[in-house]
C-alpha cells in the first residue's frame, strides 16, 4: 500500500530562502533554472560485470552494472531477448534509506529507467535471441544508488545508458541452436539513446535537475525521456500537487533541448562512432 510520505523536515527559513531565490530566477547553488549540475561518468568500473558505469551528478553518485546471462524468453515475445532493470536504494546512500526489499521509490526509479530504454528500443532485443522460444540473452541492468543528493532518475538513466554502450559480451555463433562462444568480445546491439530530463515544480516555478533540498520542498515532479530523434518515449509525474498544461508544454521544450545536450556529452565522452546519427 502506498502512503503519503513523512518527508524529512526542512526549516522554515531554508524553505523561505529557497522560494525567494526562485522567485528571482535563482537557486541555492547559484545555478540557473534550466542548468544541470556538472556531471562526469566513469566507465568500466567493475571488471566482473559485462558493462558498468558510475555517474557523479553534483554530489549524487550512482553506479550501474550490466550482467548478461542466457535464459528463457517470455512466452509472449519468444524471439526477443529480455531486458531487466532493477534499482537498489542502498542504505549507505542516505539517512532516509533503509535496508530491505525495494520500496515504491526504488521500484518507480527502476521502472522509469526501464520505460525509457524499452520504449525507445535502445537495445535491439530481436538480436539477442539465440533459439526462438527456448534460449535468449537476458540483460540485467542493476542500478545502485551510492550517494543521494537529488535527481536519481536522470543520474541512473544516464549511467545505465553508458554502461549498456560500453558493455561487452563474448562473441558467439549458433550451431544447430547451440551456443558456441569464441575468444573475442562484441558490444551489445544498441540502436537508440534515450535521455530523461527531470523537472520539479516549486511554487509555480519549473526547474531542472533538482538537488535534494529542492526535492524536499517540491510540489510536483515531472520526467520526460527523449530519444535520439527528439521523440518522447516515456513520461512520469510524481509529487503531491498538480501540473498545468502550460507547464507541461514548457517542460517538453526544455527537455528536448537539454536531453540532446546531455546525450552529446555522453556520446562524445565515449567517442561513440555513431554519435553523428
Amino acid at each position, binding site marked *: *500500500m*502506498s*502512503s*503519503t510520505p*513523512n518527508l524529512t523536515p526542512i526549516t522554515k527559513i531554508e524553505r523561505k530562502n529557497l522560494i525567494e531565490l526562485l522567485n528571482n530566477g535563482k537557486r541555492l547553488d547559484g545555478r540557473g533554472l534550466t542548468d544541470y549540475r556538472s556531471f562526469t561518468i566513469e566507465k568500466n568500473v567493475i571488471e566482473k560485470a559485462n558493462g558498468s558505469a558510475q555517474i557523479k551528478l553534483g554530489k549524487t553518485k550512482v553506479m550501474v552494472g550490466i550482467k548478461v546471462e542466457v535464459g528463457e524468453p517470455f*512466452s*509472449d515475445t519468444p524471439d526477443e531477448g529480455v531486458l531487466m532493470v532493477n534499482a537498489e536504494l542502498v542504505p549507505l546512500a542516505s539517512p532516509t534509506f533503509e535496508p530491505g526489499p525495494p520500496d*515504491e521509490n526504488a*521500484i*518507480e526509479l*527502476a*521502472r522509469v529507467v526501464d*520505460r525509457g530504454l*524499452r*520504449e*525507445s528500443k535502445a537495445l535491439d532485443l530481436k538480436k539477442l535471441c539465440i533459439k526462438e522460444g527456448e534460449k535468449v540473452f537476458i540483460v540485467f541492468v542493476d542500478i545502485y544508488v551510492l550517494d543521494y543528493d537529488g535527481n536519481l532518475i536522470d543520474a541512473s538513466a544516464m549511467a545505465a545508458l553508458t554502461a549498456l554502450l560500453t558493455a561487452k559480451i563474448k562473441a558467439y555463433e549458433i550451431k544447430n541452436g547451440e551456443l558456441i562462444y569464441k575468444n573475442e568480445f562484441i558490444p551489445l546491439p544498441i540502436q537508440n539513446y534515450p535521455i530523461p530530463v527531470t523537472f520539479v515544480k516549486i511554487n509555480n516555478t519549473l526547474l531542472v535537475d533538482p538537488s535534494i533540498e529542492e526535492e524536499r520542498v517540491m510540489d510536483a515532479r*515531472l520526467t520526460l525521456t527523449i*530519444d535520439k530523434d*527528439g*521523440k*518522447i*518515449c*516515456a*513520461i*512520469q*509525474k*510524481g*509529487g*503531491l*500537487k*498538480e*501540473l*498545468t*498544461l502550460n507547464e*507541461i*508544454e514548457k517542460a*517538453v521544450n526544455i527537455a*528536448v533541448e537539454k536531453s540532446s545536450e546531455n546525450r552529446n556529452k555522453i556520446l562524445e565522452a565515449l567517442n561513440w562512432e555513431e554519435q553523428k546519427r
Partner: protein
Amino acid sequence: MLAAKPIKLINEDGLRVDGRKPNELRPLKLEVGVLDKADGSAYVEQGKNKILVAVYGPREAHPRHMGLPDRAVLRCRYHMAPFSTEERRSPAPSRRDIELSKVIREALEPAVISEMYPRTTIDVFIEVLQSDGGTRCAGITGASLALADAGIPMKDLVVACAAGKVDGKIVVDLCDLEDKYGEADLPIALMPAFNALTLIQMDGLLTLNEFYEALNMAKEACKIIYERQKQALKSKYYQIKELIETEGEK
C-alpha cells in the same frame, strides 16, 4: 490464452478493433455507494473493465506514529484480482501494482483537502475484478467518486482517461489489444475545474505533435467522463430521495 495480435488495429473505414471511431469512448457505467461497510464506494465499468473502489476514513492512524501532525495520510492500494486477466496472475502485489498504487495516490493527493483531518488516515482500495486496458484511469475515476461518496472534502473530482497511438493514428481510451499492440499509451488524470493534471505518464514513441494531439484528446475525454461522474453522485441521492418519499406515503 493470450489474445493474438490482430492483423489490423484500425480497418479501412478508420474504425478500431471494437468498432469505435478514434475519438470515441467505450461504454461507461459509474455507480456510487455500492458497498455496505465502506465509508464510500464506487463501481466502474469501462469497456470490459470491472473495478470496485472502497474508501475507509478519515480514521485514526494506526499505529499512531503513522499519522502526520498537519494533515491526513492518504493510503492507496491498487490491486488486480488473480482472475482479472487472460492468464491467472499471482495475488501478491507485482512491481507494476506497487508503482501504480503510488501514481494513483499522487493523482488523488492534490484533490483531497487533507489538512482538515490531521493524525488520520484515508484509505483507498482499488480492486480490478476484470481488466481490459486503462485500469489505472478507470481506478482513479472510481476512487475520486468513492472519496466524494465518503464525504471527504475535495477541491474537485479527479477524472482520468488515456489516449495513445495505434496503427499510426491517435485514439482515445485504449482497450486491452490497443494497449498491448499499439505504439504509445498516454494516461492522464485531470481536475477539470482547475484544468490541472494530477497524473501524466507515457510509454511508447510519440513526436511532439502527436503528443499534444493525444494530450488534447485525453483531456476532452476526461471532460465527458467528469459529467458522468457528477451524474453518478447525484443519482445516488435521487434514489434515496425517492425511497424517503415512498416511505412517507405509507
